[in-house]
């Protein structure tokens, strides 16, 4: 409030007709854009709650479920593959994100120190990997064969333990922590571990939240490393199960009790319900985290 009172008053001039028309056009365009963005998701939601037979008869857009039913959800949640997928993905998200944030914090702290001799060579070594990589095949041979992580969930966790861009974001955040706090702690006998975990991390909580969000969502949504490293179906993460159901249209095991003609019909609603089941957790936490990630992207972008 005080800041608002002190801020000089913005100049407002009468707008010309062209400007007002432009303003109006912008609003109309953005409303249309929001419609295009959100409608496909609403359609999926409505279709997932519709009766399978009515949905196949229906043509065109949907604005509400056709005879509301949870039949498709029942079948999806009874699918053992979905449940093991959920379990595997939860393990990857929790363990993976914990490892990510821990390692990223260690690296960011070390690289934010000003008086460390090997800081710049280490920084160069790390940043260089953003621009050059050995490629997919050598990575596959190293992780899968040399390190014997083939067919383990660790193959989906350890090779991505640190994302360089996130490391840089966190380092930038750490660099803005006042030095005085650290000096006071050192006088009281604190070492670097205490300073990191008791001062830097708590003071940088919004950025830590961003890291949890970025890493967590990336783990939740990732399918490619599982496609490369996982052969056993009991180890499939959710996204690989989704791929089978959505893209390879493999819905037979969820529609065993219906005739082959109905498999197609019920298969459609099963697909939609699967999308909702797999996406809902993210959509539910998203609004609460929005203010954090906007901040995180801004820090990452304006790293002078």
């Amino acid at each position: 409030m005080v800041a608002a009172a002190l801020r000089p008053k913005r100049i407002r001039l009468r707008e010309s007709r062209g400007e007002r028309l432009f303003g109006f056009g912008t609003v109309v365009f953005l409303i249309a854009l929001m419609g295009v963005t959100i409608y496909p998701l609403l359609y999926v939601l409505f279709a997932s709650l519709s009766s399978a037979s009515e949905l196949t008869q229906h043509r065109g857009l949907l604005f509400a479920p056709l005879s509301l039913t949870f039949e498709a959800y029942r079948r999806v949640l009874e699918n053992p593959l979905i449940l093991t997928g959920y379990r595997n993905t939860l393990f990857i998200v929790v363990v993976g994100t914990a490892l990510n944030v821990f390692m990223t914090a260690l690296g960011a702290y070390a690289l934010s120190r000003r008086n460390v001799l090997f800081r710049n060579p280490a920084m160069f070594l790390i940043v260089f990997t953003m621009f050059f990589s050995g490629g997919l095949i050598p990575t596959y041979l190293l992780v899968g064969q040399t390190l014997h992580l083939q067919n383990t969930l660790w193959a989906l966790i350890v090779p991505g333990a640190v994302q360089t861009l996130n490391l840089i974001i966190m380092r930038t955040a750490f660099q803005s922590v006042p030095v005085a706090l650290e000096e006071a702690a050192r006088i009281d006998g604190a070492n670097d571990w205490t300073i990191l975990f008791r001062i830097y991390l708590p003071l940088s909580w919004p950025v830590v939240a961003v890291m949890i969000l970025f890493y967590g969502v990336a783990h939740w949504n990732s399918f490619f490393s599982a496609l490369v490293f996982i052969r056993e179906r009991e180890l499939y993460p959710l996204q690989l199960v989704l791929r089978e159901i959505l893209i390879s249209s493999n819905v037979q095991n969820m529609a065993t009790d219906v005739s082959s003609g109905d498999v197609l019909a019920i298969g459609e609603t099963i697909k939609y319900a699967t999308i909702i089941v797999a996406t809902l957790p993210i959509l539910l936490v998203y609004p609460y985290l929005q203010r954090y990630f906007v901040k995180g992207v801004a820090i990452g972008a304006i790293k002078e």
Partner: protein
Amino acid sequence: MRTATTSLEIVAPLPLPKRGRWQTISRDLRRNKHVYLMLLPVLLYYLIFHYGPMYGAVIAFEDFNPVKGVFGSKWVGLQNFQDFFSSVYFGRLIFNTVAISVLDLIFGFPAPIILALLINELRWNPFKRLVQTVTYLPHFISVVVVVGMLVDFFARDGLVNQLMLTTDPVAYMQSPEWFRQLFVGSGIWQHVGWGSIVYLAAIATIDPQLYDAAKVDGADRFRQMWHITVPGILPTIVILLILRMGMMMSVGYEKIILMYNPLTYETADVISTYVFRRGILQADFSFSAAVGLFNSVINFALLIAANRISRRLTEHSLW
């Protein structure tokens, strides 16, 4: 990001005092032993999982046999590269990769900039926040779900054909001539809002007095946008463009692997998807490692070239 970024800068080694190099190093190691202890696992991670594969890329010059290993396999020099350059797929792969990348550069790169400029024109904050909340959302949906929705909506009997009201439905996902549009279009749908955050953050750092001065001079909204907002975010645009150039040859292959099928290989198959099929699915390790290495080297060269050109023309560069 406005000037050269310190985080990406290679700073010359500290001038060492007369005490002697080793004494300085050992003092530094002792004083910062906890810091180095923290750095150790991170550096080990980078050495193993990033520099390990870089070393492993030597199999591109070998006839690699997993049983004999990297050391025991036969050295064949540039044979794998020659095989790739003379293969029937070489031209098609390069063309498809560049075509998708250029389309994405022309349509996908400016889209978030335009969106940010439009959002910035909104006067009513609740509406502004609503637009942002809605357009950021698809970024968090997994690529599997996005492609699943594409497959469904663009099927022969899917929603899009139903809405087209034509008697002649198109099986978009099986049509090579539609692949690029669907790929680039769905990419914009998913990421345009997310991409605009960076530019909105850059716009927020522009000094409001500049706008006042422009208004006093009689500039209307278009002129303010063109002469103040656009120059204000230009450094951000340039930096992101340079980074984009470094990914010119690595289009989103994870999405292509989900989207394409043998019917659309003609336009959809790119270098990285080819590496995936030959290397992972057919276990043709040396050949696909060579193709991948070729891809990495071109990307790196493009990044360096873009950075150099930008430094000369605009004074903005990564390093």
